[in-house]
């Protein structure tokens, strides 16, 4: 079964049903399917071959949803990229994937135009290209296909062992790495999640999460695959607006992360919004503080709260059944259906229940590896109990209780988790080192109530340099996605170093 087949079936079964709500815009299944077909056809006519990588860099919305399905329908490999991605990183992603096409928006041209020059792209399809006069002439820049066109369904021969997506995640070396997922990996993860969550065709899924990362992307795919209605809320930065949308659209399923729930709970009088339709709340990406678990349960007692844990490399690895939330609010449960998992010690030995160790996951949802990164693959994917079959070493430390319920302890490496997203200190340090006057830099995560961890940089300067904390932050904002930008910078006289002269991050924590 291919990943996009469920959506195509839903579109045939429910052509007149509203598939997507984006602000005032409502798009039916037939319309979204048509947009995806036309775009898929355009990609094929641009020379995109099955197995080619296609980057999609767009804001959340109907075009993004159409683009995701168009890439899959063309038999190509989806590479979703944040609309915040700056030119330098986009250049890297285009070259790392050797992508043949980019789907993007004219509003983001200051980010993609510089990257286009250095890429091997065959085409760059630009939404609302005509609204932007400043586009430099390049024969590869083409307008989004006309909204009134139609195209037949493309028949591209693919099997479920083919790659469906490469999703980039932060790597300890400072270079992002692409998680390779086949159609089978993604459909397997979807089936396991669906087995415990039980989403329905009559659900209204409120999606305020970024749709380029695993959590939001799967919710979009699952919602549209089921024939449900997906409400994309682009104004999650404004909690009142999100609460109004939950009420107005009678949202039944809200996937969230701790910062999203914190902003809703921060509203004075959340109960004045009628959210009785809500039946499922999910939390992932970082642990929800126990106090927020209790307040969410009090605010919306009719909704079931699922506390979950996952990582891009296998999408989901554990969930806590809602009936256990009140008695085990800190646990993420005992795995998901159709998965085996266990904890190992530093030597890789399997540990009994009641231990602390690294979580290892076995199942058909586990990624194929990182795109062209043999060293990191050897570290994360290792031979499991069945000869020739590889299992995922997550790099996440958990504690298990006597019954096997898992509680997250921390990362084995120095990756920072902030706002539910991973940040590699090296990637931030590399950006700061570009500043003239910086002689040393160390980036660490520090505990923060709202963010999980906040990104903090310690910097040493050359004699006479007058760089300020604010200038360093501003420099980072121009180069990095905003979740990677340090919340605080300390300019210090010296950084702690090891005998060999390497900066000792551990001494700063």
């Amino acid at each position, binding site marked *: 079964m291919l990943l996009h087949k469920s959506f195509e079936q839903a579109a045939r079964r429910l052509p007149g049903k509203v598939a997507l709500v984006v602000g005032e815009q409502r798009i039916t299944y037939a319309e979204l399917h048509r947009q995806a077909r036309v775009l898929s056809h355009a990609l094929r006519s641009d020379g995109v071959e099955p197995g080619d990588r296609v980057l999609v860099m767009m*804001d959340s919305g109907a075009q993004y949803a159409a683009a995701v399905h168009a890439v899959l329908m063309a038999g190509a490999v989806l590479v979703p990229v944040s*609309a*915040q991605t*700056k*030119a*330098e990183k986009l250049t890297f992603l285009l070259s790392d994937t050797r992508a043949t096409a980019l789907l993007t928006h004219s*509003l*983001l041209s*200051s*980010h993609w135009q*510089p990257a286009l020059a250095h890429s091997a792209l065959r085409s760059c399809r630009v939404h609302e290209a005509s609204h932007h006069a400043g586009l430099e002439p390049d024969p590869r820049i083409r307008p989004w296909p006309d909204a009134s066109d139609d195209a037949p369904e493309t028949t591209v021969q693919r099997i479920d062992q083919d790659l469906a997506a490469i999703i980039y995640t932060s790597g300890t070396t400072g270079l992002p790495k692409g998680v390779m997922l086949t159609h089978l990996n993604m459909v397997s993860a979807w089936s396991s999640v669906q087995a415990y969550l039980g989403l329905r065709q009559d659900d209204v899924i409120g999606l305020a999460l970024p749709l380029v990362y695993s959590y939001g992307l799967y919710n979009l795919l699952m919602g549209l695959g089921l024939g449900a209605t997906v409400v994309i809320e*682009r*104004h*999650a*930065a*404004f*909690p*009142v*607006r999100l609460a109004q949308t939950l009420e107005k659209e009678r949202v039944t399923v809200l996937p969230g992360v701790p*910062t999203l729930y914190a*902003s809703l709970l921060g*509203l*004075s009088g959340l109960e004045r919004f009628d959210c009785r339709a809500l039946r499922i709340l999910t939390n992932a990406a970082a642990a929800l503080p126990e106090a927020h678990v209790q307040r969410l349960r009090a605010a919306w007692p009719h909704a079931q709260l699922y506390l979950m844990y996952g990582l891009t490399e296998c999408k989901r690895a554990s969930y806590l059944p809602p009936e256990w939330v009140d008695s085990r609010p800190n646990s993420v449960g005992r795995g998901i259906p159709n998965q085996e998992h266990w904890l190992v010690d530093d030597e890789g030995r399997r540990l009994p229940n009641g231990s602390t160790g690294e979580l290892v996951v076995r199942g058909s949802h586990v990624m194929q590896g990182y795109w062209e990164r043999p060293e990191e693959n050897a570290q994360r994917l290792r031979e499991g109990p069945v000869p020739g079959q590889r299992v995922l070493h997550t790099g996440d430390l958990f504690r298990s209780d006597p019954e096997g319920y898992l509680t997250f302890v921390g990362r084995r490496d120095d990756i920072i988790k902030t*706002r539910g997203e991973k940040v590699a200190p090296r990637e931030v340090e590399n950006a700061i080192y570009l500043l003239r006057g910086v002689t040393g830099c160390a980036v660490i995560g520090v505990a923060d109530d709202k963010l999980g961890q906040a990104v903090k940089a310690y910097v040493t300067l050359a004699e006479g340099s007058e760089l300020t904390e*604010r200038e360093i*932050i*501003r*420099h980072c*904002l*121009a*180069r990095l996605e*905003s*979740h990677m930008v340090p919340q605080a910078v300390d300019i210090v006289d010296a950084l702690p170093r090891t005998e060999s002269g390497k900066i000792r991050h551990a001494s700063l924590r």
Partner: protein
Amino acid sequence: MQDIKAQVRQFIADNFIMGADGVALGDDDSFLEHQVLDSTGFLELISHLEESYGIKVLDDEMVPENLDSLSSVANYVARKQLA
């Protein structure tokens, strides 16, 4: 009100779009659509407005109509100062 607009433009330029990819932002351009501010950015903008203009941004006023462009911010702050 022109003053407020110029000051807020300076704050945004200083803190969010200086550096590698400078963007010329129109008075009515959406900060969100141009990827200038995200949720954290809006929180910074709100604290800046509260500190600089002695206003209190209420929950219900924290909406794109008041905060998502230079013109909206200038209008909103001017209204608050009169109130």
